[in-house]
């Protein structure tokens, strides 16, 4: 079989991109990475993701795959014999993984972003409660999925590990910017232990940005952007 040309369009800070890179690393797949400037979208991005114009976009021999969770499943299926599986093999466990991945993105991560976006103490408190409630459920889910092993995926990093894991640096940066604790070792002992395992894995270390860099990004880029949007909207 000929050499397959893999390209990835992404940004250094996006959890959706980070999770794809972790899986590509874990599968030992070589790819060309193109850092995108989302304030000035490239021709490449507009060509390969005309509908959403977002990252990540995986381009496999000129065929684009968009949406991070779709990309993860694509990699798992297209390279099923290479490296560890991303999703479990049992259909029921796969269904659980798919459910919790969407929950992580739509409920937990979004709620944590809401902490940063909140303009009142009341709104902030509401988002903190939401995030913590999500983490509590994930602590329980971790116990069920890991069955005593280090990862949601068992012995190796899997679908839920990369989905939640890719958000960790954001969660930690949110803790620092907002001066609070989310990943509380007393409330979520298993989850916190898991964060250490995940962040120390080789396939992760290479692509995970430093918390300080994300903190700076939140303070210098994101918050001013949100403030400007709020004042300019009717």
């Amino acid at each position: 079989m000929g050499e397959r040309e893999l390209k990835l369009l992404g940004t250094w800070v996006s959890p959706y991109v980070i999770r794809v890179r972790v899986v590509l690393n874990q599968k030992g797949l070589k790819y060309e990475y193109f850092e995108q400037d989302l304030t000035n979208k490239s021709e490449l991005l507009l060509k390969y993701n005309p509908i959403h114009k977002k990252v990540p976009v995986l381009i496999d021999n000129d065929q684009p795959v968009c949406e991070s969770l779709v990309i993860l499943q694509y990699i798992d299926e297209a390279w099923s014999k290479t490296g560890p599986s991303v999703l479990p093999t049992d259909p029921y466990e796969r269904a659980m993984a798919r459910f919790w991945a969407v929950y992580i993105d739509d409920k937990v991560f979004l709620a944590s972003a809401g902490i940063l976006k909140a303009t009142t103490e009341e709104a902030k408190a509401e988002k903190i409660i939401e995030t913590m409630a999500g983490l509590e459920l994930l602590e329980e889910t971790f116990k069920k999925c890991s069955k005593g092993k280090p990862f949601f995926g068992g012995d190796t990093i899997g679908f839920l590990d990369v989905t939640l894991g890719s958000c960790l640096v954001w969660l930690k940066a949110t803790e620092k910017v907002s001066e609070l604790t989310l990943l509380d070792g007393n409330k979520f002992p298993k989850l916190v232990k898991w964060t250490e395992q995940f962040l120390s894995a080789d396939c992760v270390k290479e692509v995970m940005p430093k918390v300080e860099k994300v903190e700076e990004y939140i303070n210098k880029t994101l918050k001013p952007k949100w403030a400007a949007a709020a004042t300019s909207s009717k």
Partner: protein
Amino acid sequence: MVPNSEVRLFGMWASPAVWRVEWALKMKGIEFEYIEEDVSDKSSSLLMYNPINKQVPVLVHNGKPIVESLVILEYIDETWNDKPILPVDSYERAKARFWATFVDVKCREAARKSFFGEGEERENGIENLEIQLKALDEELEGKKFFAGNSIGYTDLVVGWMAFWLGVAEEAGDFKAVNSSKFPFFTAWIENFLQDPLIKNNLPPRDKTVEFFRLFRQAGSCAKANVK
């Protein structure tokens, strides 16, 4: 074929998410028990099987619950793996999943704004819907169904737009689907609704329009009462 299989589906007669699961089960010839839920007075079974979202559909297979219609569809396809609903090729599967997220997140949000919204919000919703319909229209050019000559996963997933979007347009008094702007999409609606699987598996239209009309009124009241 999965021997000694007990399949139950908790649903609600007007819900498109429930119907897409029913379509999948019937396409595969899977026998199941259907339980109608009163969503204003949820059963203890539903709350037990779906404590997180407390919503339908819930598929219970041999006592184990699976929730979220897209997750359920993939579970059905993987568990009863003859007559596949999803494409076999991994790139085609990725495209199918992409469209699923597109219609369930983007199109649904635009439809919601068009239906419940007023003034600028409604206009914005309709405008977005039209952009999305254009994308779907382009995807359908030269094809009878998204999957080719017969119905597949993408058709089942976009299916709500063949019936419920029309219902929402009527009940919400707006128009987005246009046969001259979106000829392939309009043709697909016809093909989809005429397919024997779908034709005999839809809720009654008048009853559904009335239900959505009331739903819209309740939505406006709720908005008026909030803050």
